[in-house]
């Protein structure tokens, strides 16, 4: 509760009923706590503010709340521009009962996912260039279905190919605050491995009769992305 002289009369007037005075920050912290606890998916700061009474500052309340849960059995974690409460990873051993069997990802899917995460936004052709094989539709479909990737903006190059980016669900799943926190990202960048280097003429490109390719890349691409 704030102790400022201005706050006192507000308190008298039952601030929570007031449309114009924000509740004290401790109360806001309780509200953020309640909302985050109630949700299984991350909640954005905007949504917090929308749901809290007029004048609240969820971002500020989050700072306090996060500190409060430091070292506890559950933690306040950031997921992109949203926030969530998650159990502390070191207590995972207690949770066998809650564990959900996730579909095992194929090697192609894992690699494709990593390439999208580290190179995003990235086109299908670029993924294929990096992997050296064409990317099957099934692989991309699976990642889209898991909601770990989504379509990004179209690239402003001839053909205007769509790009792929990772989602908030991806960040949430791997406990990442943002795509900038991907492991080893800085090293890769320093080594120049994230640059898109145009290949000198003549280097064979992916997409000619590969096991992973049920169809030629052109064909697959147009089928998938034409609109």
């Amino acid at each position, binding site marked *: 509760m704030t102790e400022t002289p201005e706050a006192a009369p507000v308190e008298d007037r039952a601030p929570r009923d007031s449309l114009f005075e924000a509740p004290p920050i401790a109360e806001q912290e309780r509200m953020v706590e309640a909302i985050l*606890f*109630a*949700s*299984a*998916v991350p909640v954005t700061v905007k949504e917090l503010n929308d749901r809290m009474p007029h004048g609240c500052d969820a971002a500020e309340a989050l700072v306090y709340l996060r500190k409060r849960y430091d070292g506890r059995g559950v933690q306040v974690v950031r997921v992109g521009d949203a926030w*969530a*409460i*998650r*159990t*502390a*990873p070191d*207590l*995972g051993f207690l*949770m066998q009962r*809650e*564990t*959900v069997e*996730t579909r095992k*990802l194929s*090697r*192609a899917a*894992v*690699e494709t*996912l*990593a*390439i999208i*995460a*580290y190179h995003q936004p990235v086109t299908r052709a670029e993924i294929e*260039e*990096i*992997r*050296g*094989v064409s990317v099957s539709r099934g692989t991309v479909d699976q990642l889209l279905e898991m909601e770990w990737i989504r379509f990004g903006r179209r690239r402003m190059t001839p053909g205007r190919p769509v790009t792929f980016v990772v989602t908030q669900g991806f960040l*949430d*799943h*791997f*406990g*990442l605050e943002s795509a900038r926190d*991907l*492991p*080893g*990202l800085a090293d*890769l960048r320093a*080594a120049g*491995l994230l640059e898109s*280097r145009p*290949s*000198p*003429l*003549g*280097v*064979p490109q*992916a*997409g*000619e*009769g*590969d*096991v*992973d390719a049920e169809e030629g890349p052109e064909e697959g691409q147009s089928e998938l992305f034409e609109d």
Partner: protein
Amino acid sequence: MSDTPDLVEFSVTDRLAAEALVVDVDGFEGPLDLLLNMARTQKVDLRKISILQLARQYLGFVEKAKTLRIELAADYLVMAAWLAFLKSRLLLPPDPTEEGPSGEDLAAHLAFQLERLQAMRDVAARLMGRDQLGRDFFARGLPEQVEQVRQVKYTATLLDLMQGYARIRTRDEFRPFVLDRDRVFTMEQALERIRGLIGFAGAWTDIQSYLPDGWFEDPVRWRSATAATFAASLELVKEGKAELKQSGTFEPIMMRRKERRDD
């Protein structure tokens, strides 16, 4: 999946082993993947890899597959052709008059591709090694339903408004189509009338004279009665009970009763 495809002579066991190896090629994700595996056998930092040696290794592998009459997928052969070209570029002294990237440029790019692919595999493994939601850390097991409170807001566009206004202002221009029965003389009525009269008229008579009384003044009624009477006269001709004649265009149409042969 290491491979040392420099055997020249094949014993049966060698041959079987070699075939097993080649079958394993299907396990590779394309030529780049195979190259990366071969590069690892050089046991050096990928940055210091000898592309020339790698090209020899790959070509040797493809050569061996041919000897064993094993068909390689097209992209493996494309890569082989390209590596053969690269090898010759790397071995021959550079031709200063030639355009395009040098053998070194091409080799450097291939090395870059291999290193990048390896790097992506490494980080993919690190990514999958992270704590994962639903495996190592968990979301709320009993999420509370957020009740949706719906608030209805009505809206309209300028187009709606203008169309609405237009609809009202032009309402009088349109009227539901209702047949004005009292101004229509039907063919049935005309037939009845003619049948009643034609018996008395053995001679040619203008069909105008069959029009009902009082249908001449109002043009709408006159038109309707004329049309009905004309249609009725045609009907009678069709039935063989009357004959029609007209001396010329726009001349009066004359009708008379037709005598039946057996009458």
